[in-house]
């Protein structure tokens, strides 16, 4: 498959995708392998360098590595191998940490996570290095199973594309958070299906872009059964000539009554050369549902900035504080304190560099 074998921007779902950015990332020259740091958490630790497992630096625990079932998604289908986590009913796993290091060109890796009824797992992934890192993650949650997943993109260059296909069983819960705070382009492409009654899905995060980078999320949550709840909370901050795009859709199937689908998309432009695109989409086929979305774009509140400055806070710092508050909403969804603190620090570092 050639790197140029990508969809076109004329296709609705790829309107804001940075396809040139992917091609450019795949052509990057090799870089030195950066340090890979795991967070101080118990459980499995997986280090992948250019999509290959570094066994010496990894502790697999319940995770296995091998072939995975692939997807027909234009990006997702490129991953044929990957790691698998299978939990039986009732099982509670220690966190699984994955660090993805890119040192050159392109790498593709899959992951399959299957949780039995009432099983619980936590997943933390980090991307570092330079190149095009392409990931396909398939998640299947049994009745009452719970998965939380936090992903941070902090590559120094290149592009990260994520394709997630997540299916929730009855009363299952998925909480996903993505933070893009590096100097890479990004596409967070996800399809969540609430396939059982009473499912609960949160998918959100923050995209922080600068220079000429383009980052986007393209998330579709489908309520196939009644009484489900979904929340999509995204924040985008765009500086310089960058572009951040948030496309989030809620789809409610014919008989998925009593669905509660919520979207909150907010964009913040730091410079007049930056672009924020939003598309909060609703597609509703059931009549007894509560679906609301809010979307705003703007700049920081000038009155608040002045107020802080008049109390002695330098302008840049005041901007950083307000911007950080703007982003914090999206990261608050991370339940684990260690993880949340690490993500908040990445966001803070990005703001420090940018403002």
């Amino acid at each position: 498959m050639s790197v140029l074998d990508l969809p076109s921007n004329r296709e609705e779902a790829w309107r804001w995708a940075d396809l040139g950015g992917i091609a450019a990332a795949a052509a990057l020259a090799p870089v030195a392998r950066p340090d890979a740091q795991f967070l101080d958490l118990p459980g499995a630790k997986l280090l992948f360098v250019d999509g290959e497992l570094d066994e010496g630096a990894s502790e697999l625990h319940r995770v296995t590595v091998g072939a995975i079932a692939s997807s027909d998604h234009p990006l997702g289908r490129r991953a044929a191998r990957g790691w698998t986590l299978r939990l039986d009913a009732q099982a509670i796993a220690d966190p699984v940490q994955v660090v993805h290091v890119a040192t050159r060109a392109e790498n593709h890796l899959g992951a399959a996570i299957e949780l039995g009824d009432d099983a619980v797992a936590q997943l933390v992934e980090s991307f570092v290095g330079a190149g095009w890192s392409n990931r396909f993650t398939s998640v299947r949650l049994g009745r009452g199973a719970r998965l939380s997943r936090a992903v941070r993109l902090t590559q120094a260059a290149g592009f990260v594309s994520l394709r997630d296909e997540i299916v929730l069983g009855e009363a299952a819960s998925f909480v996903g958070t993505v933070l893009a705070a590096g100097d890479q382009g990004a596409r967070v492409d996800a399809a969540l299906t609430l396939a059982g009654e009473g499912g609960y899905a949160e998918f959100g995060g923050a995209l922080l872009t600068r220079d000429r980078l383009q980052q986007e999320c393209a998330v579709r949550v489908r309520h196939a059964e009644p009484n489900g709840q979904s929340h999509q909370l995204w924040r985008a901050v765009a500086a310089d000539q960058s572009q951040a795009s948030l496309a989030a859709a809620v789809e409610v199937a014919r008989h998925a009554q009593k669905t509660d689908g919520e979207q909150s998309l907010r964009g913040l432009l730091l410079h007049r050369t930056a672009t924020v695109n939003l598309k909060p989409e609703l597609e509703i086929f059931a009549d007894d549902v509560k679906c609301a979305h809010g979307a705003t774009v703007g700049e920081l509140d000038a009155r608040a900035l002045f107020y802080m400055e008049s109390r002695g806070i330098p302008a840049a710092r005041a901007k950083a504080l307000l911007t950080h508050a703007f982003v914090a909403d999206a990261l608050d969804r991370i339940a684990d304190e260690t993880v949340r603190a690490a993500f908040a620090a990445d966001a803070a570092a990005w703001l420090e560099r940018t403002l």
Partner: protein
Amino acid sequence: MATKNAEAHAAVAKKYEWGFATDIEQDFAPKGLSEDTVRYISAKKNEPEWMLDWRLKAFRLWQTMQAPDWAKLNVPPIDYQDAYYYAEPKQKKTIASLDELDPEIRRTYEKLGIPIREQEVLAGVEGARKVAVDAVFDSVSVATTFREELKAAGVIFLSISEAIREYPDLVRKWLGKVVPQRDNYFATLNSAVFSDGTFVYVPEGVRCPMELSTYFRINAENTGQFERTLIVADKGAYVSYLEGCTAPMRDENQLHAAVVELVALDDAEIKYSTVQNWYPGDENGVGGIYNFVTKRALCQGRNSKVSWTQVETGSAITWKYPSCVLAGENSVGEFYSVAVTNNRQQADTGTKMIHLGKGSRSTIVSKGISAGRSDNTYRGLVRVAPTAEGVRNFTQCDSLLLSDQCGAHTVPYIEVRNPSAQIEHEATTSKISEDQLFYAMSRGLDAEAAVALIVNGFAREVLQQLPMEFAVEAQKLLGISLEGSVG
């Protein structure tokens, strides 16, 4: 008085001169849309050379284009080479008397309180033309009176064919400037074969002394499927224009592809109100109009303002996005829409607000009401250019679902390239609660009246934008459109 009557007769006679219903049937090969067709139309209208060239250019372009493929609209393929789509654009199938009319349409006329003779005109009853001449005779005189008054104010209000002949420079200056020929498939087709339409020019500083309406024109002149409207408001001018009428138009033309262009110069304001109630087809989705309209306004001047208000209840398929290009500093665009779909109707409608000018502002209020097995989509774009400092937009999209077999969709695009912009978008989806229905019924309203009342409440923000007499009819129309939608 005598003069007035003479003028009216002349106007009527003229109408037949232009009407190419019978002529075409005799002159023309029935099948195939070709350059000859375009030449024929142009010749019939005694158009100048530049106009023919303009049409031909559009036609050649159209031949290279592909019909749009819209995901949410289920559009059966249209055979453009079937002569009936263009060669008889003005021909309505005649019926001998109102008794032959679809009883549903008849009932709607009665509910709207339309007089019998006017019903006959709307329905295309054989011989009704004569009746129409008599019945509309007063209207013709009225129209003539209007014309005198408008003329005194300097307002030009003509059919576009007349305007092309009488005010070629004005028309040539603006035609296709807002909706370019290559804009989209249907606009290009319209540019090649547009049959007639309206031209309005309001000169500098003039506040048009009355609401302009196509009502008479549509009834009397039957402007048909490829309408072209061009309205220019010069500096400081104001005009309010009403399009359509609340009665369902019975029409054998399946495809309607109109183009409407509005231009507002410095400090000018145009208010454009539409009530669209073309035949939607029966409850099984048989028949009905495909309404593919391109409507766009250019707010070119400083402080210019264009306000679109639409009530869409008709057509089997509606595909329209009345839009504003807000080029002028501090220009204002507004879009107020109610779209009702019932049975098997499909509506895909919304707006585009393109902010280019500093301090430009826009407001979008869209109320979608879906019933039966219909689909109702709001599709909109708010774009802020890098140079557009201090832009404000507020968008509110509300959907009301009246059945569990219909669909309501909201597809808003927001593209912002200037940090000083303040863009807010809100959307809600709801249904009529059983509590509301029971409460209204316990006060004496039957189920349909209760639904109509609640729906009118839902659509109120939009309805109150309409001129008074239009608003009252539009309210009735909402109720009628939703009949049978509540079990």
